[in-house]
């Protein structure tokens, strides 16, 4: 083969491989065009089908159609991917052949070049190079300096942002300080002293009521003093007002203020009938199911509901039962595509919400925590990791000191978490040497500081709200703990079925007394004014002397008691699972004042506000009042 033949051959190979490359590239472009037209990710047909399924979730035919369509789209997608990959390899092969052919072609065509007669003037080129380097150096450094002027240092701004943020939250801290150094912090101490010297329970009530009046006066005075200061918040509903007094004026968590089962509202009705409508001011249907109890702030009542598709928070107007807004807890990163398996008696929305008057917070069995403002705008949402819980997560939320406090005891690990209420950012997280539990946190005040008391198998323990540090723990509990603790006069009452009822001195960590005759399965103990109530799931309500554990009386109602007993307006309110609320005189002797039927089954705990009772039934939210 001579040079001319080689030239011809390389030329022909170059032309053929060039055409080959062009055809492959064209096919790839066609593939791309076709794919972009029928992108399964953006398939509108599929979207329409999914939308239809949302409206008709039980349509099995539609589900099958979606699955088939989805499978087809995926096949098309991966087929297209294979074509792209194969095409790219063919293109590479063609390009290599083309490059080789061109190379041979050009090398065969190359001629012996004559040497340059005149070489580049080195001096001139060096002078030019100097100019080039000057310009290049100046341009590089100039650009760097220009970039510096065009750059905003947001990290520096963070301090400023933080200051603003602190200004916003400082009223809350001021509020806490008021409690610490002023009045409220002293209140239990005084009450302790009184109760220690008094043997008569009724006397204790009078003394405590008197002290509360003093407290109110002092706080009013303090508020007035604060009002004179320019820094003081003028908004009656700001977070600054989240004092003990403020939450006592509302019902902001499960079992009322601080989760202790004590309501401070007066003029609570004692007579109603759900069937006839007597004293039922309104009843509103609840869109989605849940076992959480109502929480109240001002004229707003909050509950939550969930099904496998959606998790929602509802806000009702407490005056007329109008559904003001529905907050969706969807599209939360980390939230599982399908909710975890839960049992029917717990469900996906068993945890009661909490509110600070600024925002309302909810948690679901998916581990989703969400915050809405009082108008239903979602402020933040996050997923804490799906709780490994064989019944479903049910521990309720509680808020204090601008921290959303979450008891997160799961089969994997026990922990308690504090999130920044404003942002959802973690503030602290404390691991607990505890097994899974379904109980809720209770706030108590000791030595002027607030602590969170949690119960689970095997410990009852207190945690500093500020730091999350475990302050104490007593090893006394066992089993699947559902009831939260009761608290009064420096004594924590923890109980659980098949375990024990233990009275624990908060300061000495001593178990003052124990009893295992009547034990609750779900209802939390109520301790107030020297009296302790236990409600068992088999229908016995038992009254004890809180100090000694001596039983005063018991009442076998013969109905399941999951709802927790609540003290309100000097009376005990105990609802059974059939929706019958029994009202007792709060005393050492049993005196049943009334039995009122709701007309709906329920296992939730009633909420009290402004002379009204709010009860979540199986399907409706009831407002009872005169």
């Amino acid at each position: 083969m001579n040079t001319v033949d080689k030239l011809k051959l390389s030329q022909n190979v170059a032309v053929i491989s060039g055409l080959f490359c062009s055809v492959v590239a064209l096919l790839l472009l066609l593939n791309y065009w076709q794919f972009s037209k029928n992108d399964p990710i953006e398939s509108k047909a599929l979207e329409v089908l999914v939308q239809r399924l949302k409206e008709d979730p039980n349509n099995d035919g539609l589900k099958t159609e979606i699955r088939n369509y989805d499978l087809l789209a995926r096949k098309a997608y991966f087929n297209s991917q294979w074509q792209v990959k194969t095409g790219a390899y063919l293109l590479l092969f063609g390009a290599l052949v083309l490059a080789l052919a061109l190379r041979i072609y050009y090398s065969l065509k190359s001629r012996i070049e004559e040497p340059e007669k005149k070489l580049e003037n080195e001096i001139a080129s060096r002078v030019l190079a100097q100019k080039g380097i000057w310009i290049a150096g100046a341009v590089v450094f100039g650009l760097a300096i220009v970039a510096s002027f065009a750059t905003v240092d947001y990290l520096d701004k963070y301090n400023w942002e933080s200051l603003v943020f602190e200004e916003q939250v400082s009223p809350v801290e001021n509020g806490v300080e008021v409690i610490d150094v002023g009045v409220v912090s002293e209140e239990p101490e005084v009450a302790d002293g009184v109760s220690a010297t008094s043997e008569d329970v009724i006397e204790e009530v009078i003394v405590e009521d008197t002290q509360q009046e003093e407290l109110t006066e002092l706080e009013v005075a303090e508020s007035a003093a604060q009002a004179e200061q320019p820094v003081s918040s003028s908004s009656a509903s700001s977070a600054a007002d989240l004092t003990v007094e403020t939450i006592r004026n509302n019902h902001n968590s499960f079992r009322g203020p601080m989760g202790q089962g004590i309501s401070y509202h007066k003029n609570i009705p004692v007579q109603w009938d759900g069937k006839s409508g007597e004293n039922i001011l309104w009843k509103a249907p609840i869109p989605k199911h849940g076992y959480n109890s109502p929480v109240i702030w001002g004229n707003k009542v909050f509950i939550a509901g969930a099904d496998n598709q959606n998790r929602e928070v509802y806000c009702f107007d407490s005056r007329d039962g109008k559904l003001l807004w529905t907050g969706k807890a969807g599209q939360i990163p980390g939230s599982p595509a399908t909710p975890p398996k839960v049992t029917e008696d717990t469900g996906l929305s068993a945890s009661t919400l909490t509110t600070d008057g600024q925002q309302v917070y909810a948690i679901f069995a998916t581990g989703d925590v969400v915050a809405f403002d009082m108008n239903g705008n979602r402020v933040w949402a996050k997923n804490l990791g799906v709780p490994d819980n064989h019944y479903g997560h049910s521990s309720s939320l509680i808020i204090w000191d601008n921290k959303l406090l979450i008891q997160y005891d799961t089969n994997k690990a026990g922990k308690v978490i504090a999130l920044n209420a404003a942002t959802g950012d973690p503030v602290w997280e404390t691991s607990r040497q505890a097994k899974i539990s379904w109980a809720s946190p209770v706030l108590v005040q000791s030595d002027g500081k607030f602590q969170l008391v949690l119960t689970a198998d095997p410990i009852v323990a207190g945690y500093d709200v500020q730091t999350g540090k475990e302050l104490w723990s007593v090893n006394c509990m066992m089993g699947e703990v559902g009831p939260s603790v009761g608290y009064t006069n420096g004594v924590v009452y923890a109980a659980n079925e098949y375990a024990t009822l233990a009275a624990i001195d908060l300061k000495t960590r001593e178990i003052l007394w124990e009893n295992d005759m009547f034990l609750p399965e779900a209802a939390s103990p109520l301790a107030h004014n020297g009296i302790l109530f236990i409600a068992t799931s088999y229908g016995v309500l038992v009254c004890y002397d809180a100090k000694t554990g001596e039983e005063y009386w018991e009442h076998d109602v013969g109905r399941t008691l999951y709802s927790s007993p609540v003290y309100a307006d000097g009376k005990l309110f105990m609802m059974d699972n059939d929706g019958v609320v029994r009202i007792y005189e709060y005393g050492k002797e049993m005196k049943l004042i009334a039995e009122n039927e709701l007309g709906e089954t329920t296992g939730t705990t009633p909420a009290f506000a402004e002379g009204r009772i709010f009860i979540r039934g199986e399907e409706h939210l009831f407002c009872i009042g005169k």
Partner: protein
Amino acid sequence: MIKKMKLIFFLFTVFYLFSTGISAQQQRFPKPEFESGYEQPSTITPEPRALALEYFDVLVLLVVLSLATWLALKKRSRQGILWLSVFTLIYFGFYRNGCICSIGAIQNVTLSFADPGYAISLTALLFFILPLAFTLFFGRTFCAGACPLGAIQDLVIFKPLSLPKWLNKTLGIIPYIYLSLAVLFAATGTDFIICRYDPFVGIFRMDAKFHMVVLGISFLLMGMFVARPYCRFFCPYGVLLSWMSRFSRWHLTITPARCIQCKLCTNSCPFDAIDFPTNEKEVVKSGLGPKKFLTYALLIPLWMIMGIFAGERSHTWLSKANQDVYLAELLISNPEMKNDPDNIDVQTFLASGKTMETLVQEAEVIRRKFYFGSMIAGGFIGLVVGMTLLNTVVFRKRQDFEPHKGNCVSCGRCMDYCPVEK
């Protein structure tokens, strides 16, 4: 005929550029949602390459380096070097997917110095050191036959144009800037930019983002006329190799014996790396003498101060490339981004449980590193500019046509042009 060939070039270029867009469409396909209780298998991370195979790579590199050196210096075979570079392209390029490579190893070495918690692998260290060691003794034979990036560019040189010296000199500053930025970003744990912006790795892997594939193909197309553009005007490792090569004892020579000044080799080097004999008369006439030398020597500290100042001023801007700094600033400037479920960075941060305060603190630590690092980088660039300027007034007495030790990649093309025999 030439017109036809040009047409083929054009068609090929256009279609290839368009078709690369297709590979960029490979998006992550959403997982199907099952309601039957089927559990998605967890993502599997591929096992790292077996240690023995990593050492085998080092062995291959050593053999290739030795062969390239032998072919360039002893055998003086351009054909041998060409076929060796084809092997390198196939093995280190397409088979090893362009990783590990000596160029990127700069960053591993830097990070191992800057971060005590980072342990560099022996393989990465050897990939960094071996070519430098060979270059120190034998010139840049690594570039000739052992670098896949060099090989792919070398194979597409069809019609190389000679660039004027001033342009070569000016563009020659870019690798120093790239090197200083690469070291800065690696030392601050920000990014391995050499790897991220490797223009050819997408071709080796047959998969890359659209703009990277375009960049790679652009380099290759440009490389048809401007030989090895990446090696000459971007490669940060080339800077180190160039330094080493200047001290090489046994460097490739154009002629095997005595230069006969035939000038046949003047256009043989596609990289403009042949120095011509010095014309002393012109040098004396030019005025680029001791005065200029002194002026430029005194300017070096000024250039460095300017560089340090520019580095100090631009450190905030540069630090934004760091993921933590970027995220912290994003969340400070746009707090509502926390509610954006589509922002993976933000959502990953939120899911990590880390507080905003911690993030900002970490970002501030990184920015502090950038503060000092940028000043060092700026000072280094200032030094390079000053030294390059100084170099333009330094004349070395040269009587023959010689390869420029710093810039010559020892490809051996010039040897074929020399009529002198041993």
